[in-house]
């Protein structure tokens, strides 16, 4: 990927939906990662 047209901000996004999932125990234990979700959505936006 030469120029990803976005930079994943590590300060985190305002995304109540993801933030809520990220805080759930079963999501944490499963290995759920908000940055993977953000990466996917941003890739779909800039594909």
């Amino acid at each position, binding site marked *: 990927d030469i120029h990803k047209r976005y930079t994943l901000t590590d300060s985190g996004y305002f995304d109540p*939906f993801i933030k809520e999932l990220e805080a759930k125990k*079963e999501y944490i234990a*499963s*290995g*759920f*990662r908000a940055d*993977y979700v953000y990466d996917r959505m941003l890739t779909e936006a800039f594909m």
Partner: protein
Amino acid sequence: EYSKEKKVGEGTYAVVYVGTKYSTNRKVAIKEIKTSGFKDGLDMSAIREVKYLQEMNHVNVIELIDVFMAQNNLNLVLEFLPADLEMIIKDSSILFTNADIKSWLLMTLRGVHHCHRNFILHRDLKPNNLLLAPDGQLKLADFGLARNMGSPQEILTSNVVTRWYRAPELLFGAKHYTGAIDMWSVGVIFAELMLRIPYLPGKDDIDQIDVTFRALGTPTDRDWPEISTFSTYNKIQFYPPPSRDELRRRFAAATENALDLMCGMLTMNPHKRWDPTKCLTSEFFVELPEPTVPEELP
């Protein structure tokens, strides 16, 4: 367009033939999907193979050359790959070196990286799904359990990946896992390439948890936050993690970087487990020996 010359395999949902594409005289494998007897219509495995292989085009992922209907059967025309890594590992008459292992691992990781950057999970990585082409290229195959990484709140089944290669979060029934489950499988395959015997051969799902933690230590909330929320966590035996020296004894031929890479892929906590990019850019692939060029591999 194609001939079906010899039946070379039969699975639950497909019969595999070796054939030829007349126009190019190219040898092909034709996977004929059984359609009768499936009460829910076309089998999910066939749908997944078609769906995901159509989107990928990479030297380390098996090529779907064509798809056609014939006599009301769905036929997938795939590139012909006569060997797989399981054959190589099991055949003690075949000697292979660290450079060979490095080459196979590099190609496997490139294939997995391509799947993951397309947000596709393979979910059944194991030596006999890593096929070898006549030119030595290794290719990920059998996408019958693959799926895309799903929407954030989606529930994924934990009943995936062949047991010996199943990540600990799956053994505990996780439903919101990520591509980290594929990385665990690659880690176990790497160990198996170095040992030439299966590394975590559990007899059943319960034994698999025990075998895994006996070999690598039982994770705790400290190194894997919230692991104790898994209902099955409280019933397991506690084992200490192996020391570095113990790992050196187990993998005598492994360099420090090789051990780092393997431990990165076999990190218990999926959050911290190495992803394909971290593996591909690890020291292991830039230290000697260089990976064997594919044409010279056994």
